[in-house]
């Protein structure tokens, strides 16, 4: 078996009822009840004014989680390669474009078109942080968290570099919501490093497995894990929040999952 090992140096988290990693640890570890409420996306202060006006939900989401993780790791965002993984691009923007294209006036605006690309978050991220490093922008439908984690781990292991993983999804409004019921914005960011340095929170060793993905006993957290692809990474964060060396299985493709051995630092 081929095991991919990396250290987690920083975590960012934002979603319904989860406002950041620091305050969410007590919820994930079961010390405080999980009370879902609509995700509040902060204004993207780091973007120039013109880009800030044009930015959409998925841009605000990834700037919030990514910068939280990188600040915790004490690193400069401009120095890090990145992996963005999402089931789709910005949901609201997609809906508005499809509505216009079905109408008599198909003249969508340049900003709408900018924001329609799957890599809109990666583009704004590099503008905001000044990162000229490589950015892998991925989709694997419900397997997007696992696909992103694998891509980030192969960067760390093969290219011997730190990287930041930004798993993120935003809600589709109706009528697309009925076809793809993602209810809210949710994101996890992880700074991953090849060495187990002073700032490491945990070391993870990841294999492909046939085992079944871990679930939450708490019904609301389990709903969240199932409803939003990026939230399939939450069992990993729960293990770190519980401050225990653990094995977890994360959801990935129908044919294979990710077994993660977590050793706290």
């Amino acid at each position, binding site marked *: 078996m081929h095991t991919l090992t990396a250290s987690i140096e920083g975590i960012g988290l934002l979603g319904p009822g989860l406002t950041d990693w620091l305050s969410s640890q007590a919820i994930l570890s079961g010390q405080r009840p999980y009370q879902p409420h609509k995700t509040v996306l902060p204004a993207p202060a780091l973007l120039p004014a013109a880009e800030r006006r044009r930015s959409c939900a998925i841009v605000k989401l990834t700037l919030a989680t990514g910068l939280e993780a990188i600040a915790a790791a004490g690193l400069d965002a401009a120095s890090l390669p990145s992996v963005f993984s999402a089931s789709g691009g910005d949901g609201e923007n997609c809906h508005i474009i*499809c509505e216009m294209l079905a109408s008599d006036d198909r*003249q969508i605006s340049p900003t709408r*078109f900018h924001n329609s690309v799957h890599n809109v978050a990666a583009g704004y991220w590099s503008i905001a942080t000044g990162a000229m490093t490589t950015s*892998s922008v991925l989709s694997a439908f419900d397997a997007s968290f696992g696909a992103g984690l694998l891509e980030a781990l192969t960067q760390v292991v093969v290219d011997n570099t730190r990287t930041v993983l930004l798993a993120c999804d935003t809600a589709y409004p109706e009528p697309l919501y009925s076809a793809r019921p993602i209810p809210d914005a949710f994101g996890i960011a992880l700074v991953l490093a090849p060495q187990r340095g002073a700032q490491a929170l945990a070391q993870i060793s990841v294999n492909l497995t046939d085992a079944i993905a871990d679930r939450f006993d708490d019904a609301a957290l389990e709903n969240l894990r199932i409803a939003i692809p990026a939230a399939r990474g939450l069992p990993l964060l729960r293990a770190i929040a519980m401050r225990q060396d653990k094995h977890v299985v994360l959801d990935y493709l129908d044919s*294979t999952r990710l077994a993660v051995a977590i050793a706290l630092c």
Partner: protein
Amino acid sequence: MAYFSLNPLWLSYFTATSSIGRGLDQTLAALRQRRAGLAPCAFDTVDLATFIGEVAGVDAVQLPAHLADFDCRNNRLALLGLAQDGFAEAVRAAGARYGAQRIGVFLGTSTSGILQTELAYRRRDPVTGALPADFIYRTTHNTFSVADFTRRYFGLTGPAVVVSSACSSSAKVFGSARRMMAAGLIDAAVVGGVDSLCLTTLYGFSSLGLISEQACRPFDAQRNGISIGEAAAFALLERTPEHLDADAVLLLGIGESSDAHHMSSPHPDGRGARMAMQEALKMAGLRASEIDYIHLHGTATQSNDAVEAKAVQYVFGSGTPCSSTKGATGHTLGAAGGVGAVICALGLQHGLLPAGLNTRQLDPTLDLDYVLDNREQPVARMLSNSFGFGGTNCSLVFARAN
């Protein structure tokens, strides 16, 4: 970033289907005959005055019954592409050789099957606004759809993903596959790109004023925008065996970067493009002078070609033959990197530097050895550029085995 130099990867099979032809023979013949696939746009209900590179016969493609849920233009085009040049048979043989779980699928697309959603929005319930019951999001519109279709078509169970970074997508898949192979998770990879015509890109590029009303003219003094095309291009990547035919094609280097500048305009000095080409050369262990031909991204917008020329000059000087083939195929967006890879592979095997089409008067301010007539000569190494929206850049270096 500390790169380990690349162990060359072998493109054991490859194929491309675009508006200039189905498969390698038609593609090579079109390149040799300088035949373009661009024609005035008559796609769907589009009322834009522009040229497009449409693949003939996509609508007639039928998906296998067990994959009927995946039916959309993008996956029909994918299947049409997979059926050429014995590519599907080669993937099946690799599956038998390595095991289904040891082959990864890494495909690029920008818009996937979004056309299906655009059409569904015309058929919303007048009362509830609901989309029609026959609309299936997951297997058509979703960005992952084409990789999911491909892995199910071949029964592959290894890692699978779509890279969707606009027009660099199907160049960057080579990077993801390389890392996955080097990490030991897989033994072979189906890589490539599929992008198909849809209203979002036609009206979107139009809104930016980036669409030409004629067939696009890369590097022409009067160039005034892109022609959108569609294509499916695939390669099977394997580790390099000990013994290879002399004309086998190898991937030697990959360079990836971001502009950190603007969503739809390249960095004015081409810094990101420069970095991608330099990183690709570094990974290949080559000097710029060892590259025989550059397959330019060359979209035919004023700023893209000017900036790419500046970046190429910075890295290579003005002496390396180069051209853009978008005058032939149109800009196939998320498939462009894959099409570029296949055109380079054909060029290496057949000793062809393909001419850029439609260019009547080279832009005198862009000091490059831009190839206006086909050159038939032995070629050892080529570099292919793919740059995209959001400032995403990827350069690939390919070489003949001998």
